């Protein structure tokens, strides 16, 4: 009541400011719209600029490679061969195209062909499933394994495999790093005991983590029929990426605001209450900052680890296309590059959203 009266007074005092305020507000809103328009405009221009430069660059590289090819034919086989080569390149025949950085249009075409390929494979899968439905039902009834489609994975399948692997790795990192981080954060002596361990293992490269996990999992899987590539890659990803979460959790737990600790002391909260009502909630923002870093590191190292582990994800896709050396391999690699980048960006946005949800100071993070 008292408060209301005072608020009333306050607004009375300020009432002469109202027209000015509303004017400023409308002006401010206009400025905001203009600003966001400008921002999208700048983004669009920069994208076009990027595509233009890319186009010019790839054209220059193409010309250089073409000139070299013709020159080579001339030196080795004479004028006639050189003319034939020139005509062949000009005709766009895929057998003699210069192999270099693909242009934006080539990459776009590859993207479309990858999608078409995916649809084709999907259709095959469905056909296979309907064809085998009866047989499989019989097999299952007999207690045997159903026959599954084992054809080539499509591009979309590789993306899904990668996402599955990164989330499995992320989950593993979370399950290991958060509890350990909390425990060592709570105890200064454990923290110093663990410190050397963290300092030594944090900088180890993903390749070495892969080799370590490979040594262990390979032995554990002796005799098992199933494929262990997925297991090896997600464990390596998790171990490699968990350190940021471990360090951040320990830091968050050990550096809770002294005021909160004093409140807990005055109220004589028990250990359980203190940990779950005060310490953990107050360290959540830092824990999630750690998890966000972990997810982005996990996605980054995943590509290398999939390649090593021969796990059928984007990493292996890129590597196989490179080995393959087909005409459109280079553009497929660039497509994969964009897909990797965009998914990485989306994963980061996702984590940012979660992070902002748990942070009590709404403008933290970013």
């Amino acid at each position: 009541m008292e408060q209301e009266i005072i608020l009333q007074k306050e607004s009375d005092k300020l009432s002469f400011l109202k027209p000015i305020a509303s004017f400023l507000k409308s002006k401010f809103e206009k400025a905001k719209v203009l600003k966001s328009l400008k921002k999208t405009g700048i983004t669009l221009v920069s994208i076009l600029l990027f595509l233009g430069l890319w186009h010019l660059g790839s054209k220059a590289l193409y010309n250089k490679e073409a000139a070299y090819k013709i020159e080579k034919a001339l030196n080795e086989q004479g004028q006639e061969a050189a003319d034939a080569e020139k005509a062949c390149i000009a005709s766009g025949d895929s057998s003699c195209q210069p192999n270099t950085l693909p242009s934006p249009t080539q990459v776009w075409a590859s993207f479309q062909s990858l999608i078409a390929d995916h649809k084709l494979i999907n259709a095959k899968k469905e056909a296979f499933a309907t064809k085998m439905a009866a047989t499989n039902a019989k097999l299952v009834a007999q207690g045997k394994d159903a026959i599954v489609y084992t054809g080539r994975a499509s591009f979309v399948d590789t993306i899904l495999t990668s996402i599955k692997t990164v989330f499995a790795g992320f989950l593993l990192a979370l399950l290991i790093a958060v509890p350990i981080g909390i425990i060592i954060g709570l105890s200064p002596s454990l923290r110093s005991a663990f410190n050397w361990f963290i300092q030594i293992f944090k900088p180890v490269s993903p390749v070495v983590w892969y080799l370590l996990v490979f040594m262990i999992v390979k032995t554990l899987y002796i005799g098992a029929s199933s494929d262990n590539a997925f297991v090896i890659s997600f464990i390596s990803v998790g171990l490699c990426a968990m350190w940021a979460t471990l360090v951040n959790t320990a830091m968050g737990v050990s550096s809770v605001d002294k005021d909160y600790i004093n409140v807990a002391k005055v109220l004589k909260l028990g250990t359980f209450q203190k940990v779950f009502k005060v310490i953990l909630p107050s360290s959540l923002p830092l824990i999630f900052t750690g998890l966000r870093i972990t997810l982005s590191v996990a996605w980054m190292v995943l590509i290398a680890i999939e390649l090593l582990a021969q796990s059928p994800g984007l990493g292996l896709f890129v590597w196989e296309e490179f080995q393959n050396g087909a005409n459109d391999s280079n553009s497929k690699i660039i497509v994969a590059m964009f897909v990797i980048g965009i998914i990485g960006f989306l994963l980061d946005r996702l984590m940012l959203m979660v992070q902002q949800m748990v942070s009590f100071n709404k403008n933290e993070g970013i």
Partner: protein
Amino acid sequence: MNSTTVETNKMHTENGIFYPSNVMLDLKDLKKVYPTPKGDYVVLEDLNLQIMKEEFVTIIGHSGCGKTTMLSMIAGLNPISGGNIAVMGNPVKGPGPDRGVIFQSPSLMPWMSALENVLLGVNQVFPHATKAQRKDIAMYYLHKVGLDGSFNKKATELSQGMQQRVGIARAFAIKPKVLLLDEPFGMLDSLTRGELQDILIEIWNKEKITAVMITHDVDEAIFLADRVVMMTSGPKAKIGDVLNIDFERPRTRKSVLQHQDYYKYRKHLIDFLEH
């Protein structure tokens, strides 16, 4: 002063020692030493102070003289280097809900609502009450501090003044014997400060608990207190002077300002601070 002065001669025993029953807080030869790289720094030495039940004592002194140090020792948050502190005859061994604290910053848990912040203490102090009863207690005190519409607002959504209101509700809701306040209104504008002083004194009148409050504001010290305790400047600070404020309660700001003794008290305090 309060009606308690009447009972001065009653005695009770605690830990085999006789205490006049109206002494709530007894600080005896209190000493505090902070070890520093340049050797020990003696903040407080030979500090003696008795605070009666249901008394409101304000403490003033120069910045850095050791007021916070003394209060945090009473709260049990800061170890005692020498001498002792007793609450109703029991030596202080650590913090506890018999001594509620209102800190300078509201120190609310920002991830909890106003109600949850108050409940955190209430749940701890009344473990045998039903959930509804505990909620009633918390809501009663939030109502008392004028936060009726804001029970479920997160602490971060409240203004500084409203946060400190929650701080007051939280401290009273655990029914402490002693309330310790360390410049609780120092960060607020003067209008809000006045409102909160009124709220504080109103609840204090009703609850009849002992209050010890540090302040830098001479007028606040006079308006709220039965006694104003002045501390000498450090190092080795002790109690320099004590001023009894003999205004009747309940007081209004207007009646206090118009009282003939007001300027006498004020001059006394300012002279002490400027000596």
